[in-house]
Each structure stands twice: as structure tokens, then as C-alpha cells.
């Protein structure tokens, strides 16, 4: 307690007690009605909307001093958003932090579910930008509320059908809508649909906080969660058809990183803890020669002419044991996933 007072005389976990009680009541109702968005009186936080104010408020309402907090942004522990939220709670709640998924008791996440399976006793807190899955189909809150009350989700199926009619497949690749316990259609936040199968039957408690939109919703452990689909177009989780270039994992979600201005690219696990853990156990990917270097996140393209990034790509190519051909260096940006 004294060290919390030393840390700038914040109340434990920043928020005042009345606010936390209000959020806690909303969380309990959200747990009682899985997938339903409970309105709550979202507060101004010392960070802008869009930086996870909803998740931060939910985390603040759940934290206890004994917790070990992990914060990830698109799977990474070391990006600005993750680092600043982690520091925020170190300072205002005095909690321990970690980057290891297995050691964390509370994990706040932006747009990913960790690759390492969660377990009972853990809480996964999502930062949600637009909690209403029907919002882009029906802009009026009064109407979407009625649609949820009447279980009127035909419009969502029409949208997915139009995807098929136009593209030959369901083109929605993130924030893929799910149905919870056969009742509410829910936006799982902009996680890639690769992560959707981890939403259901998960032993951890999953809480979703949308600060600007003032909504909290939840998935209790072991909830039944189905991604919407059709009998003849079943749901398929997707990822880039590659292996991680650092750890060689073939079953993790990958980020594409541009390594030079000549079309060079590499694919790396978006979950930095998972990737680092695999490399520590000796797994090696195609470009893993500079193994001791931290996972390359898009710093290369900065300022002068791409000299450092060329160095990175060529260094990797020169040292990797089977010389990589085509794929990364020669292909000159002709990859299918280039833009779009």
C-alpha cells in the first residue's frame, strides 16, 4: 500500500471507488447475459479514445494487487500502446507485469488472442473500438437495440451472403461476427478471424470494454461461440500461407513485415511472446540467423534510403542455412498479399 501511495497518490488502479463499483456491476450483468452489450458510464481516461480506454477501465475494475498484468497490442508486448498501458498500471496499481502469457493473471489485449492457450483463473480484457456488430448495417442505436431484442439478425447474414456473391467467399477477415450461446450476435473486436475459434470453450473469463462507445460485454468461461456462416460456405479461420521466418511456426498468426524497398518481406508471428518462447526452445525459421536480435517490428522504413533495412534483409539471407530464393528477396513485391 505504501508504495502505491509513493507512486503519486493515485487511488488503487487509478479509478475512484464509485466508478469501479459502477463498472463492476456492468461486468456482472455482462457475464449474466453473455454477448449482450451493457451500457456503462465510461470515464475520461488519461489517454485518448481509441487507445484502449474501455479495456483500461475494465482492467482497472478487475485488478487486485496480487495480479500479474500482460498487455499486448496486435500480439506484441513491445509496442507503444502496450508499453504505455502496462506502465500506467504499474504506476497506479503497483501490480507486477509480465510478457509471458502463461504467467499472466490479467491480459489486456488489442486485436489478438494469445497463441498460448489460456487457463482458468486468467482474465482476457479486449479493447473494443465499435462494439455493435450491426452498426455498419444499421447506424441507429435505437434500431440495433431492437434488432438484438428481437433476435433479428437476418441483415448480418445478408451481408455475409453479399460477400459471397461479390467475392465468391466471405471476405470479412477480422471482427468476424459470432453468435454467443445461440442468442446474441457479438463483435469479437477486430481480432483476425484466425482467432475466432479460441473465443468459445475458453477456460478464461473474457471481458470486452469499449470506452468511447460506453459498452461492456463478456464471455464467461466455456461459452458456446459460433462464427456466423452458411452450410455451403462454412467458416474458415485464415492466415498467411507461410511459416514464421523467425521461429518456423506454421500454426500461428503472422504479420507481414516489409524489409526493404525492393519487395523484400518476411512473415513473423504477431504474438511476440509465443515467437520468442519458441526461439528460446531452439526453433528456427527461414531468416532466424540474427537470432539474438529482437523481433523486427516495422522500424526499417525510416529516413535515409533504406540502407539499414537492406542490411537486415541481406544479413538474414546471407546467414540462413538454406539460401532463400525467390520468396523474400527476388520476387520484387509481386506477392499476392501486397496491398488490398
Amino acid at each position, binding site marked *: *500500500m505504501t508504495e502505491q501511495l509513493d507512486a503519486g497518490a493515485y*487511488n*488503487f*488502479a487509478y479509478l475512484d*471507488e*464509485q466508478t*469501479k*463499483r*459502477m463498472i*463492476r*456491476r*456492468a*461486468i*456482472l*450483468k*455482462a*457475464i*449474466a*447475459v*453473455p454477448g*449482450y452489450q*451493457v*451500457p456503462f458510464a465510461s470515464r475520461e481516461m488519461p489517454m485518448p479514445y481509441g487507445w484502449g480506454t474501455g479495456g483500461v477501465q475494465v482492467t482497472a*475494475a*478487475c*485488478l*487486485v*494487487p496480487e495480479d500479474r498484468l500482460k498487455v499486448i497490442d496486435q500480439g506484441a508486448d513491445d509496442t507503444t500502446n502496450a508499453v504505455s498501458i502496462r506502465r500506467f498500471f504499474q504506476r497506479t496499481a503497483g501490480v507486477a507485469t509480465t510478457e509471458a502469457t502463461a504467467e499472466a493473471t490479467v491480459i489486456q489485449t488489442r486485436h489478438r488472442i494469445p497463441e498460448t492457450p489460456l487457463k*482458468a483463473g486468467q482474465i482476457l480484457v479486449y479493447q473494443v473500438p465499435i462494439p455493435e456488430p450491426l452498426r455498419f448495417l444499421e447506424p441507429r442505436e435505437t434500431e440495433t*437495440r*431492437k434488432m*438484438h*431484442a*428481437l433476435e433479428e439478425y437476418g441483415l448480418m447474414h445478408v451481408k455475409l451472403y453479399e460477400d459471397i456473391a461479390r467475392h465468391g467467399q466471405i471476405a470479412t477477415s477480422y471482427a468476424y461476427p459470432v453468435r454467443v*450461446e445461440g*442468442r*446474441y450476435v457479438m463483435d469479437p473486436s477486430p481480432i483476425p478471424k484466425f482467432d475466432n475459434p479460441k473465443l468459445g470453450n475458453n*477456460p478464461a*473469463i473474457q471481458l470486452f470494454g469499449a470506452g468511447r462507445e460506453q459498452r461492456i460485454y*463478456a*464471455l*464467461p*468461461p*466455456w*461459452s*458456446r461461440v459460433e462464427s456466423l456462416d452458411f452450410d455451403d460456405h462454412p467458416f474458415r479461420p485464415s492466415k498467411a500461407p507461410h511459416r514464421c521466418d523467425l521461429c518456423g511456426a506454421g500454426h500461428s498468426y503472422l504479420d507481414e513485415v516489409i524489409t526493404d524497398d525492393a519487395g523484400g518481406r518476411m512473415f513473423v508471428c504477431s504474438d511476440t511472446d509465443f515467437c520468442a518462447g519458441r526461439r528460446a526452445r531452439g526453433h528456427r525459421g527461414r531468416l532466424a540467423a540474427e537470432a539474438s536480435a529482437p523481433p523486427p517490428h516495422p522500424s526499417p522504413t525510416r529516413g535515409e534510403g533504406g540502407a539499414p533495412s537492406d542490411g537486415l534483409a541481406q544479413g538474414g539471407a546471407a546467414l540462413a542455412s538454406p539460401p532463400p530464393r525467390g520468396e523474400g528477396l527476388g520476387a520484387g513485391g509481386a506477392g499476392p498479399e501486397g496491398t488490398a
Partner: protein
Amino acid sequence: MTAHALQGGFAEAPVQSARAFREILEAMARPGTIRRVAGAEPPSPLSVAAGVALLTLCDPTTGLHLAGAADCPAVRDWVAFHIGAPLVAAEVADFALGTWEALQPVSRFRIGQPDYPDRSATLIVESERLVNHGPALTGPGIETATWLNLPETAAFRANRALFPLGFDCLFTAGDRIAGLPRSTRVEKI
């Protein structure tokens, strides 16, 4: 107001209520599991767990209904001093506290509206004891099944039939607490 009413609250509210909420959250998210809470010493006949639940969840913005023996001057004074929740009729209560018998008929409590199912009552049901023996519970938060000594099953089955409307329950006995949200299916006995 007696001097006793001034005692028995959280000594260190931010941390104690955080720990208590975490236990209540786990209890509600995993129906049928029994958790322990600490930190409150409410006047008789309230249990420690009921006192903790009130201190953690209620405040001047939530209407509280005291039912049966819980509706006594000592409890009223304690609630007034530590919590400040307005004492209200059952029909408009956000929280209600009492034994299962005292809370009857439970059909009078708010169950929310179709567009706002969260606007429903939470019942804090004082029990003699809590054990993992009784009707089987299944549903969200439960991997296969759990068991809890519920006072009856018909009322909870009727409540589940209202889903997504319905009231939610916290059962308290001594320092033990268990949750039964409206989403839980209760075995017919």
C-alpha cells in the same frame, strides 16, 4: 444510529473491494463454484459474505431492498453509514437481500426489458450453508456440470426460461459466496 453501525466496513476499501469483486466475478462467471470473501463485519443477521457483496457492489445510485429479518434497524443503519444505498421496494430494487423465504415471491423483482436486459435485480440470498451438492447446473461458465444446494429449482428454471431477461443471484453463507446468473440451466429434481 448506534456506534456499531459505524464499524464493520472495509478498512482499506480500494484493495479489499478489488479482492472481493474478483471473487464475486469468479463466482458469477463459474456458476456453482463457491468462493470465500473477507473484510466486512456487518451486524447480525447478515453474513460476512453478504456484507462484502453490499460494500463491493452497492452505493447511493443503487436501490436496495431488505427482506425479512435483514430489514432491521441495525442493518438499515449499517447500510446507511457504509453504503448509502436508498432502501426501496422490491419491485424497483437493483439489489435485494434476504433469505430465500423472505425474498418470496421472487417474481416481483425486476427482470430487465427486452432491449435492456441488464436493468434487472441481483438477489443476495442468505443461506444456512453452501455445498457443492444438489441439482446439477449447466450453461455458460460451466465446462460440464457443477452442483449447488439451491433452495429450490422451479423458480430458477422459470427464471432461465425468461432468458435473456431474468434476475441474477448471489448465494451467501458465512464467508462463502456462490453465483447463479440467469443464464444457468438448473436440473429438474
